[in-house]
């Protein structure tokens, strides 16, 4: 297939002919654009991509990608994606999911795909609300939120995606925001190149049912002071004036002001995304405004053997020594007798 080697793509090549049916102004449009851009830059033949999703607004995503796509059932995308990747390890598998799909009905599959470290890229659109069912609270909704199913406010604590990922022995966790095309494209590319389950949490805005839910940290006026973009090997500096940083104070992270109390850049933590010990990554993933800036970028990226590659290796190893080479051999193995 000569055509298959032609890998000069533009984002347009990944657009399917289907009408995009998300609400005008929905953050999903920007996510679609950044993933299409990332894919174009990766240069992998497009027939190698399989997009798998569950149910929810985010899960319509595969229909809009000119690639192989499987729109599954609610909560089960991690399981379906696991099957796709294990069956056909040559594919680059993307799972597109949301906070309800992945963390409520699909919570079990979500932690198990991470535990097994199956080499897929899992993009979780977090808008802290159920959109497709028109506005009920989700497992990431903050405590007290008033929604259609919590008219007096919720009384339950939310999950933090990053804490859950790292708690399930996750090897890759990144966070980005729907509007930020540059950061997002970079994060998706790194997730794609990472061997293992890479989870990307996208802070996404639901313009209809939870509009502005991330504004307290992502609004143009405040975002530089209330978020920090982590880059491997660089000191943890943030702020509009780049005058704030993060240090380790005893067992806790602490925000400091450069120049105050003799603090200099040298005192700041240097981000090490490749550190196997998840302690600092866990704390970084859990940082929450107003005590801390919210961490963006690649928070953790620690490679280890993937399930899919281990399975291929195990089969090859067993086959090498096998007495049984075909079904006829199998049927005649063990105790048989002639009549």
């Amino acid at each position, binding site marked *: 297939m000569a055509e298959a080697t032609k890998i000069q793509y533009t984002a347009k090549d990944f657009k399917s002919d289907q009408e995009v049916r998300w609400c005008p102004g929905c953050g999903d449009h920007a996510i679609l654009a950044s993933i299409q851009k990332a894919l174009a830059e990766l240069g992998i033949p497009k027939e190698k991509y399989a997009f798998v999703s569950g149910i929810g607004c985010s899960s319509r995503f595969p229909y809009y990608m000119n690639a192989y796509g499987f*729109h599954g*059932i609610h909560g089960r995308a991690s*399981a379906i994606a696991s099957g796709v990747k294990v069956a*056909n390890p040559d594919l680059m598998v993307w799972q597109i999911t949301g906070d309800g799909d992945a963390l409520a009905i699909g919570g079990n599959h979500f932690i198990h795909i991470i535990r097994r470290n199956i080499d897929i890229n899992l993009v979780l659109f977090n808008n802290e609300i159920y959109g497709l069912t028109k506005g009920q609270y989700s497992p990431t909704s903050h405590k007290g939120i008033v929604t259609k199913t919590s008219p007096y406010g919720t009384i339950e604590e939310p999950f933090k995606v990053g804490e859950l990922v790292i708690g399930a022995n996750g090897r890759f966790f990144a966070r980005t925001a729907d509007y930020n095309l540059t950061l997002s494209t970079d994060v998706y590319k790194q997730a794609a190149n990472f061997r293992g389950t890479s989870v990307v949490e996208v802070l996404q805005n639901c313009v209809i049912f939870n509009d502005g839910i991330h504004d307290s940290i992502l609004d143009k006026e405040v975002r530089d002071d209330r978020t920090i973009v982590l880059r491997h090997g660089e000191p943890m500096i943030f702020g509009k004036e780049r005058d704030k940083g993060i240090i380790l104070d005893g067992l806790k992270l602490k925000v400091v002001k450069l120049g105050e109390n003799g603090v200099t850049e040298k005192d700041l933590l240097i981000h090490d995304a490749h550190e196997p010990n998840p302690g600092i990554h866990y704390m970084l993933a859990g940082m929450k405004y107003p005590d801390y800036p919210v961490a963006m970028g690649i928070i953790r990226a620690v490679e280890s053997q993937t399930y899919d590659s281990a399975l291929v290796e195990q089969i090859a190893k067993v086959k090498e020594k096998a007495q049984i080479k075909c*079904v006829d051999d199998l049927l005649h193995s063990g*105790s048989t007798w002639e*009549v």
Partner: protein
Amino acid sequence: MHIGYKKNILLQNKTSNKTQSIMGKRSQVIERDAVVIRFSGDSGDGMQLTGTLFSNASALFGNDLATFPDYPAEIRAPQGTVGGVSGFQVNIGHKEINTPGDYADVLVAMNPAAIRANAKWLRKGATIIYDSDNFTEKNFLKAGYKDDPFVEDGLNDNNLIAAPIATLVKEALKDMDMDPKTVQKTKNMFALGIVFWLFDRDLENTELYIDDKFKKKKPLIADANKIVLRAGYYYAETVEALNSSFKINPAPIAKGTYRNITGNTATAWGLIAAAEKAGLNLFIGSYPITPATGILEDLAARKDLGVKSFQAEDEIAGICTTLGASFAGNLGVTSTSGPGLALKSEAIGLGVMAELPIVIVDVQRGGPSTGLPTKTEQSDLFQALYGRNGESPVVVIAASTPSDCFNYSFKAAKIALEHMTPVILLTDGYLANGSEPWRIPSMKDMPEIKPPIAKYEGKEFLPYERDVETLVRKWAIPGTFGLEHRIGGLEKTIKGTVSYIPENHEKMTQLREDKVQRIEVPDLKVFGESKGDLLVIGWGGTYGHILTAVSEMREEGYDISAVHFNYIKPLPKNTAEIFANYKKLVVCELNGGQFVNYLRMKHQQFNYHQYNKVQGLPFTVEEIKDYCTILLEGKKNG
């Protein structure tokens, strides 16, 4: 049950010198067409292994046979109680054997609870060999007896053989450096030795098995088991009570290479065979559940044949990984039992909507809910046919004997792959754990499997474009250039585009149903007369019992015939044509009447009688005969 050693044994009429010398001492040899033996004891007593070893030895001798393990759900229920009794029944014969037998001719009872559990399953005058060391007052109480079990259950007229097995085993191993607990663990081999003598079976093969299992890692255990096996054999020879033994001549069996096989292993192997024939990888996504777990275990062991086994986090993930694997171009299969099938329902619907080839094996057990996990039943039929939201047609087929699970799992995969549809294969606990000798087929004789894999033809691929005859869509494997497409659980057009257009939904619904209905399935074959007074209708795992009952009644002169269904949806085309030829129809099944009501719906012109049993047990031949006699004569048989 796997036989551990790797030696192919050519069966001859061989009798070792030693056995021959013992033969000389047999004072009375009873020659029989068939004998039913039941091994029964605590679930830790090793009765399943004992039964299996005896079955293997009998198969090697040339008997036809059928086995039925009957064990509790609890791994180790309180010792000595009826709840903890584990049994293994085998029917061996020198004629064709189709069931494990209704009543035991020989019972090996390791404790009083085994008597309590089996008293009503003994033939009149049966031989009962029991471990008299275990027949203490304390154990009587545990088993729910006030006094002597044989008196209380009226069994004193039977041929009772009291063997102080615990003492004899201790004595046999007194020179071995072994702790008392390990010594007592060999008791089952003593019992096996007795039975081997009783049926004049060769010990050699079983000794080879013991060596293969233990010799390398635990040579002492291997020696102890062999010593005790022989001790049991010589004990039987010496003890006066055992003055008679049985002779079951080899059965006239078609020429070929044979092996013993259980339903679960046959199911697993049929799926591997189908993958090989289709030239595809086999993927199994599954979650352990009794009595289906053996299928996952057998497939997990077949990495040598490239099987990808995935032990999922739950039943839903089992089928969803399977769907993913099927989408990606593997033969995707999942195995489960009733409660698991319930959990998989939504995902089976996705398979129907997306039109992906998957096989779902449901090893039925007693329900509802957790029900009777280790017991057999046929009560998932409606769940298989209808247990999903929406109009959701799937192919439903059922295997009828342990060994034909191989053929039906192969066929399930063939239909799934060639017709791009989920197929539910129904087996049951009785088939899954039961075993029988099986003439090994050759792969070159198995039918071809040709999945409709799409090729790039220089134009846009339409995932729901169909073959005009079969209505089957093409399977485009991700990774193939130019065939990028989207499928999913939403209603769609021919292109795969989401569509809520009312007429399109109705059309697609009809197409999915028609696709299943157009699958060619073999015609029914009648056992007996082409017309007559009574037709006994069965499906799935009741085959052996119905066949035996009908054939015995025919020998007794009744006008009775039988027909057995393996294809439930779609039904064989000649179903109504056959039914029309009989005055009475009776449907026998192990549920409240699911198949009979399905037939009432599909072929309303007939009047159906029904005979149902929901006890977690297979039919007995006797009860089927009794019911059929009532239908024919208005009174009981005999």
